[in-house]
């Protein structure tokens, strides 16, 4: 990026809420239902029906507002945002405009230089999702109304972000918060957590904002970062060539790695907002708000600090383990069965996460439960198997779904810690490898590795490495001439 310029970025995030029913009717929000089966006269937009607000949505909004340090408006109103599109049967989206449920708040994040930044949250408001359009070659568009009326919270940030990586950090943190609050599953690929970015650039030191563009259709963190970087570069190039930025909406194309303007027809936006006459103002009394605040779960940062203090974990570990609520719970469940917290942390960060990434599954679909992993690691802690053997047992557990103890027993993998037995093996190996013994005595310490290898081979990896090392050194040194 040209160093003369700085980018100014604000994000609009839509979080689809994990309520059971829709915003204004009792239809299910489940997204894998057959097309047009979760519908009723209200979400179909039939004339004469009356919407009734889902209390849970208000609760979720207050929770998120509290987590993002927002003020909660004790009176907020719904508004109609008017536009015609076939996936919006009513001809307007019920949203909030002038008085949203949550006002100004902020999030503190660290940029890649570990500098703390305060990112303002302009507002959070409640609104309904639209349906889905399916286009095919037939000359028709097919409409599924199931998603119509599914509740969303829109979280609008101030233009406080200064780079694509800032934006990604903000987004990751916001997703972490909605997941911890259990109000949204945060799945960007499936569209339950969506992000639009407003991007402009200006010369460094300039106060006035440049003309902004809006980028849509970025369905992963990576794409958000790529799309914003693309747009920053594009705008700088235009300005450097003496051109002007056109205010417009761009669609990110992940296959082509570029953003192209949306067709102007889809863009003609004059929403003519007005207060929704079918819904009275949403009034939140202080007692209810206090009750909801009390229900707020432990948030990611607090949990991370607790992991450091309570389990004596390094910041790095605590950070990784608390990135997802499910992983942090998996950790805390596992340590019910074994006491070496750091060992559990290492295994989750390494072996477990590796498998999850490879198989692209979430921890809830991981076949080795916390108790099974805890029991496996307890076998290491108590010296019954070595860490190396444990890796094999772990893979075997994945494969056969058997418990660690069973596998260890079946395959006779218990560690050999018996001193006499190991001494005999070592004596034997030293006898057979006289030249290496001489090398050692001549100061070539690295042949120790060779002997350990031989011993492990002889015991099929079951020798207790610590005992082997001690005994081996003892034996070798006893061969030194006095």
């Amino acid at each position, binding site marked *: 990026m040209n160093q003369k310029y700085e980018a100014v970025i604000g994000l609009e995030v839509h979080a689809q809420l994990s*309520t*059971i*029913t829709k915003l204004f*009717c*009792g*239809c*299910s929000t489940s997204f894998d239902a*057959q*097309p*047009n*089966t*979760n*519908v*009723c*006269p209200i979400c*179909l937009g*039939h004339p004469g029906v009356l919407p*009734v*607000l*889902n*209390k*849970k949505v*208000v609760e979720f909004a207050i929770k998120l507002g509290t987590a993002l340090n927002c003020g909660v408006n004790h009176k907020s*109103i719904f508004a109609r945002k*008017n536009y*015609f*599109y*076939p996936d919006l049967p009513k001809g307007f989206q019920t949203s909030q405009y002038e008085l949203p449920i949550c006002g100004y708040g902020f999030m503190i994040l660290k940029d890649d230089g570990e500098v703390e930044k305060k990112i303002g949250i302009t507002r959070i408001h409640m609104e309904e999702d639209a349906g889905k*359009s*399916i*286009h095919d070659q037939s*000359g*028709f*568009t*097919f*409409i*599924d*109304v199931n998603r119509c009326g599914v509740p969303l919270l829109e979280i609008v940030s101030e233009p406080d972000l200064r780079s694509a990586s800032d934006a990604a950090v903000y987004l990751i943190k916001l997703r972490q918060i909605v997941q911890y609050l259990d109000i949204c599953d945060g799945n960007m690929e499936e569209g339950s957590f969506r992000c639009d970015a407003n991007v402009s650039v200006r010369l460094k030191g300039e106060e006035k904002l440049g003309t902004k563009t809006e980028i849509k259709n970025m369905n992963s963190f990576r794409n958000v970062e790529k799309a914003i970087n693309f747009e920053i570069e594009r705008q700088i190039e235009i300005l450097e060539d003496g051109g002007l930025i056109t205010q417009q909406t761009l669609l990110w194309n992940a296959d082509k790695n570029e953003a192209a303007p949306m*067709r102007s027809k*889809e863009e003609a936006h*004059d929403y*003519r907002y007005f*207060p929704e*006459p079918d*819904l*009275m*103002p*949403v*009034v939140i009394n202080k007692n209810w708000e206090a009750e909801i605040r009390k229900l707020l779960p432990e948030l990611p940062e607090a949990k991370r600090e607790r992991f450091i203090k309570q389990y004596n974990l390094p910041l790095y570990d605590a950070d990784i383990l608390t990135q997802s609520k499910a992983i942090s719970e998996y950790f805390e469940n596992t340590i019910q069965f074994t006491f070496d917290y750091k060992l559990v942390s290492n295994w989750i960060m390494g072996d477990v996460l590796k498998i999850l990434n490879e198989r692209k599954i979430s921890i809830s679909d991981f076949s080795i439960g916390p108790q099974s992993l805890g029991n496996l690691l307890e076998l290491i802690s108590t010296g019954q198997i070595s860490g190396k053997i444990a890796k094999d047992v772990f893979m075997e557990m994945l494969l056969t779904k058997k418990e660690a103890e069973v596998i260890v027993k079946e395959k006779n993998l218990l560690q050999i810690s018996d001193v006499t037995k190991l001494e005999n093996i070592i004596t034997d190996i030293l006898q057979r490898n006289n030249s290496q013994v001489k090398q050692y005595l001549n100061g070539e310490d690295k042949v120790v590795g060779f002997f350990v290898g031989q011993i492990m081979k002889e015991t099929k990896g079951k020798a207790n490495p610590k005992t082997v090392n001690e005994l081996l050194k003892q034996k070798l040194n006893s061969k030194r001439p006095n």
Partner: protein
Amino acid sequence: MSVSQSDVKYIAGLAKLKFEDSEIDSLTEQLNSILFYIDKLNQLDTSDVEPLSYPVEIELNMRDDILKASVSRKEALSNAPDSNDEYFKVPKVIG
């Protein structure tokens, strides 16, 4: 405040309404007479008055997040000008 004929055409376009030119004349006139009346109201100083979005002072009733039976797909699709077994069919939106 008043509206011109092109304002009226623009608003009609947003509402997907089509009018003859002669109708636009009378609509512009009618809208302007309404706006004239609003202008009259605007002469009052309302700087200390909170905007009134709703004429009655009732709070919103909310419902619990409990599933209710939806209508059948057949019923849902039955009012549509065009549909197949699963979807509403509309003229192609984008190419």
